[in-house]
Each structure stands twice: as C-alpha cells, then as structure tokens.
C-alpha cells in the first residue's frame, strides 16, 4: 500500500513538473518552515553527569555553540553521577547525562523531585584485571560469587591460587549502579563499599575492578589493564549494540519533569533522543539507544 502511495506521488510530481496535469497549477501554500532553536552561552543549560559521558557532552556543547571542546569545558561538570542527579533534583543543573541511576536515586526522582529520564545510549559493564592475571573470561555467576565473597581465590575460576581483591566503587558511582542493577540484584557486596583504602583499583596481581566499556576502553582509563570477556563475549560497540554482550546498561538524559516545553534543557533533551541527536551520539563513538 505504501509503495503505491509513493509511486503515485512520484507520478504526480513528475507530471506536474512536465506541465501535463494542469496549465496553471493551483499553488498549495508551503508549510511554514519549522524554526530552529539556537543555543547560546546565555541559554545553554548547566550540564552535569558521569565521567564516561564527558566527551559526548563536550561535543554536544561544541556543535550547539560553535566552540571548541576546550572552550566549552567551563559549562560542564562531569565525574560524579550521583552528585549530578542530586544537583538536578535540587535545581542546580538543567540536564544530566549519566548512567542509569541507582534504585535509591530513581525512587527519589519519582517521589520527591519528578524528573524526565530517557535512554540516549547503551554501554557494557566491563571487568578488568592486571595483565599478569591468566584469567580471560568470567561468567556472570562467577562475577556474582566473587563480589559476594563466595569465591575468594582466582583458582575458583580456573586461575592461579591468588587471593581475589575485588574493588568496588562508591554508591554515587554510575558503574556501581550498573553493577547493582545487572549483577548484584540485591545481593550484598562482600568487600566494603569504596572506602579510603580500597576505592582505587591498584593493578595488583589479584585485583579485579569494574567500569563501563566506553570509559574503560574508548577513553582508555583502564588502558594498562586486561578487560575480560563475559560469558565468552568480548565487549565492543558491536556486541553491546547487538545485545550479545550480557551486561548492558543505559546512559540516560534527565531533566526536571517541570521543565517547560520550550526550555533549552528540554529541547536539548529531546534533540538527543531524536534522529539527529542519535546519529550524533553514534558519530561520537557511543552505542545509540535507538
């Protein structure tokens, strides 16, 4: 049916161009061009978010304002997912680009400070170890057992007889929220949550840490370490996009639900979800949500 419509339309257009249908065609008023929104430094919203999305935020601000990445840095504050969502709820920022929030934050966003949350990209939760660790792959169940303390030696997962030193992250962390949602599912961490002495992956022989793929690999923040395959699947943009990689989390754009329809933050939020925004997300090396 749709093909028929198109063929008909082509025919109509062709004939009208050749002057066959009517000598003086009645001019149909052209629809008003949809006006383009123009971002400036004055109306560009305060954008905060997680470290993994800082390159995307820089490039979005760059094309919206026609400035370089370096010159828009003063408009962005990235590196603390939990704080970003808190600032959004408190009205201290206009738009958050970050990993899906933790359940606790999500509940606050629903009950106390309603926010509009939409996925704009996807990423994989990845695990890394030191290069000297012979283990290359873990199953999701093995990861769960490592982080709940049921496995305490790498020999439990066909590795060397070396104690496992599992590093986790603070509760404000975006990758911690992904870990909670995708692996732990309510199970208790055996190791204490990130504290003063244990929060930094130290690259030691028995260490294992986690992060999001884009941050760890594309941004090369885990460049010196070995990223493991999970269930035999190597994390990559392709395996994350296809869903073959088993641990996939969303990156979200969030604004206040009360943001006006024509407010800059809502326009930017909607643009990121739209065709042009999603294409831009992909061009920046992320896996788009759509």
């Amino acid at each position: 049916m749709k093909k028929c419509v198109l063929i008909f339309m082509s025919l109509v257009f062709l004939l009208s161009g050749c002057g066959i249908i009517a000598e003086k065609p009645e001019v149909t008023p052209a629809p008003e061009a949809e006006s383009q929104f123009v971002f400036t430094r004055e109306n560009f919203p305060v954008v905060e978010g997680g470290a993994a999305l800082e390159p995307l935020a820089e490039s979005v601000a760059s094309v919206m304002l026609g400035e370089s990445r370096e010159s828009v840095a003063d408009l962005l504050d990235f590196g603390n997912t939990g704080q970003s969502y808190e600032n959004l709820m408190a009205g201290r920022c206009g738009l958050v680009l970050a990993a899906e929030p933790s359940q606790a934050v999500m509940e606050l966003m629903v009950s106390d400070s309603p926010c509009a949350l939409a996925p704009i990209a996807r990423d994989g939760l990845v695990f890394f170890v030191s290069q000297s660790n012979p283990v290359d792959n873990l199953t999701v169940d093995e990861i769960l057992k490592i982080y709940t303390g049921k496995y305490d030696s790498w020999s439990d997962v066909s590795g060397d007889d070396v104690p496992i030193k599992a590093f986790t992250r603070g509760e404000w962390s975006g990758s911690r929220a992904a870990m909670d949602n995708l692996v732990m599912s309510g199970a208790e961490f055996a190791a204490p949550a990130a504290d003063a002495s244990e929060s930094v992956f130290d690259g030691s022989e028995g260490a294992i840490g986690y992060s999001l793929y884009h941050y760890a690999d594309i941004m090369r923040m885990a460049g010196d370490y070995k990223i493991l395959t999970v269930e035999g699947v190597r994390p990559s943009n392709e395996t994350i996009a296809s869903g073959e990689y088993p641990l996939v989390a969303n990156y979200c754009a969030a604004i206040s639900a009360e943001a006006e329809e024509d407010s800059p933050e809502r326009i930017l939020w909607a643009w990121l979800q739209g065709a042009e925004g999603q294409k831009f997300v992909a061009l920046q090396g992320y896996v788009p949500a759509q």
Partner: protein
Amino acid sequence: MKKIIPIFLMLCLTLTGCGLSQQARTVNEKYIAPAIEAAQSREDYGSETPDGPKVLTDKSALTEYEPPANVSTRLSDGPLSQLSPSGDYGRLLPYPGAYYEDGDGNRRGKYGLVTDTSVIVLDPVLTSADLACYASDSGDVWLDIYILGRYVENEDGSGATLYALAGRDGSWVTGFDYTQALPMELGVLCISDIDKNAAVCYGEDGTVVFDTANFSGLGQLAPGSIGSLAECSGGYMRICYANGQYGFINKDGAILNKYAELPSYFEDVRPFSEGRAAVCLYGKWNYISTDGSYAIYGLFDEAGDFTNGVAVVEKSGVKSVINADQVVLAEFPEAETVTAYDGWVTVRNADGTEKYYLTPSMTEANLYDKALNMSAEGYWVVGEHGVRMRRFAGGELYFSGASALDDCSGAGLYLVTLTDGSRAVMDEYSRVVVTGEGDFRFVPDTDTGETYILNVTDGEANLYTASGTLAAEGILPRDAGPDGGLIPCADDLTAGLKNMRNSWMFRIKVDAGD
C-alpha cells in the same frame, strides 16, 4: 521501503533542478534536503526514532575526542604503595591521583609522591601530603618535611588516619605510627600515644631531636598534655605537670630552672615570644628570659605576649604597654581592652571608641582625622575616590576606586574591594593586576617565597603571577602555593602538576571512581 524514500526525494531533486522554477529550488532547500537527512537518519536507526526538535548546529569547531595521555614514568613496575627512602630522588612533590569516599560520603582526593622529573615514587595512597609549616615571631616557616596521612582500617571496619613523616627529598621516611604530627620550631612533633605522653620530634634531616621516652620527668607530666610541646619558642616548650602547674622543657629533657634557685613551677605560663615568657606565680605575672631569670619583674595582674617589641600588662586595674626593658610606654586607665598586634596596639574605651598606636614607638596613628582601619602593612582610610594607606614602614599608597583594603601580600600587592562590590588586586601604584569575582588570596611559593594570587570562583581555582598573568588553571585550592614553580592541578579525568606557564609537567589519568 526505507530506501525508496531517498530515491523518491532524489528524483524530485533531479526534476526540480532542471530549471523548472525558483519555487522548486526553495522547496528543495527548505524541505527536501532536510527530509533526505532525516530519512537517512531513520534508515540507520529505525523508523520509530522521533525527529526531535530542530536545533541549529555548527560542527566547524568540533574536533575528535582524544583520550588523555599520561605524562609520567614509574620508579618500578607494579604497585608503589610504600615510599622507599632514597637519596637519589631530588625534590619530591605530592600529586592528586585518586579519589576516596570519606565517612560522610564526601569524595576526597588521594595523593602520591612524584619527583620533579615526573617519576612516580608513591602511588596515590595518601589522604594528605603537606609540607610542614609553623608560625614563628617572624612569620610562617616551611620545613623540609612532609607530613603524610593515610587512612588505616581496622578489622572491625572502623578506621582512622595515621601519620608518617618523610624528608622533602625522600631520603628518609618514618612509619605510619602517629596519631598527630605537629610542626614546630624544632621539627615535627609526632604523637604516638597521647594518653601516655609518647611522642618523638624529628628534625629536617630525619634525625630524632627528642623522644619523650627519654625525658626523666615524663611521669610528672599531666596525662595527655604532650601536645603543648609544640608551643615552642627559643628552644623551650611549654609543659603541664600532673599537679596542674606549668613550666618549660628543652629538647634534652632539661626543665628550665630545675636546678637553679629560681622557680621552675608556675601557676600558668605563656610560650616564649621575642625572648620573653610571661609566667604567673602567687597570682602575679612577670616575664622570664630563656636563661630562666626574671627579665621583667612587675607583679602584674595580667600579662600578654611580646609583639613587635611591646606587651600589654595590667596592674591595679590600669592597662599599660611596656617594652622588653620594662619601660612603661603608655598607660590607658580608661581603656576597656588593649590589644597588641604586629605593628600596632588597639585601645578600645568603654564608650566603644577605638584608638590605634604604632609600635614600638606608641605614637598615635592618624590619617587626615578620618576613621582608621588597620592592616598588616599600615593604616588606611576611605576617601571620596579611593582608599589611602599609610604604611608602617613609611610612605603612603592610594588605591583608586577602592572602598576597602582587604589584604596585603607583603610583596607589593593589595587586595581591595571596589566601589561596585567586585574585588581587585592592585599594585602599589594603584594599577589593577587582577580583577574578578570570587575569593582572592595571596599564596607564597613554598620553595622560592615568590608571591602568587589565588582566585577561587564557583569552586574553580586559578593561580596568577604577581604581574597578573594566568599561571595555572584548574589548580587544587590549598593553603600553600606552588612548590618551586609546580602546583597540583586536576580536571575531570586527569591530575598532576602544572608549571607556572599553565602546562602539565606531570599528568596521569585519574579514575574518577564514577
């Protein structure tokens, strides 16, 4: 189906481009080209993707993202969790390199140590790494000793920060054995057990200046009083005895006047300042010198520290200012309070009026009979078009457009508030060096003593040279300034040390922990 849409649109474009009409070209520009782009977008991402709002974009300045690169080398492969002492490091500098979450859920920086040739000798395992500094009669004194803090967790999950010391050149280091580390005249006093008065003082070369375990009279001291040893001047430290009395002890454990025919116990004492210490016996205050003898025997009811050659005393309800030779320079029988500062004495009368006297001469300060304000370098008044200051050292300065003088650097720079409420740093010729929002502060280079200007606006800290040039941006606000021209800096993904030309001399990627 999706492929047909661009083909159809291209067909239209071809036909309209055959010169059929201007209107067709307009239609092309306005509707067809964007439609192709939108169609191609849907082609890639599925027909369910909404178009989204139309937004003007300009990609001309967008460059490809480049991951940050490390500018560093390591002393050795593998974790560097302990500082190995070596005489080969040269100068060491603390660098921010990681984050941790404190007990209150706040994210804080962790520090490592790096040589000034960018070789990491200690990974970021420290919760603090500060150059030791103490206040002396002549100002702040920086020692060649780092006080290193490290959070140590107990088996029950509780934890505490313990301290170690290291030479500025890394040639010596102690264990993390101390609960407090207090910089002082003799070195750094490290307390291992406050209840048992157990402490060790280390000098700049790492040698033990004294160990309280060797003090023969340790048992006579009040439990938990050892912290007062850091109140040291002229080689003598204030001590508190178990019976509540006070005295002085030197690094050899010798108690002042213990074997002399002079009192060694007092009801109260003040630390030595300018070679004199106020001591109270039988309810009356006098001053002793560091040889233990009475330098001023005035039987005062109150006695303050010597500052710039004078001290404020009170006898029979009358407050006076005396010099080190016990000469009474001025008496203020009507005064409610008399307070000595470095350079002047403030006298406040019962009616709330204040007068200021310059020290040590005690001549009354006056400037055009206007209401005076005092600063570290002189006294100033607000005029019609600015602030005028008369310096203690002589001469007058004028700050045009200023409504207040907020701070003096001691190096020819002055922080003023302008009449519009903004702040500015001016030089002594009233030329604006730096202006802007936020807080300004003068900070010295701890190695060279050179003065820099720190500006903190909305949590962002930048450093400027004394001539107003941006020296380093993204610096970590701290009490100290640069160290030999290098200062800790951080952005969202990296941290390290910048030189005073805003260039990274040492840089590492920092896992934000996010």
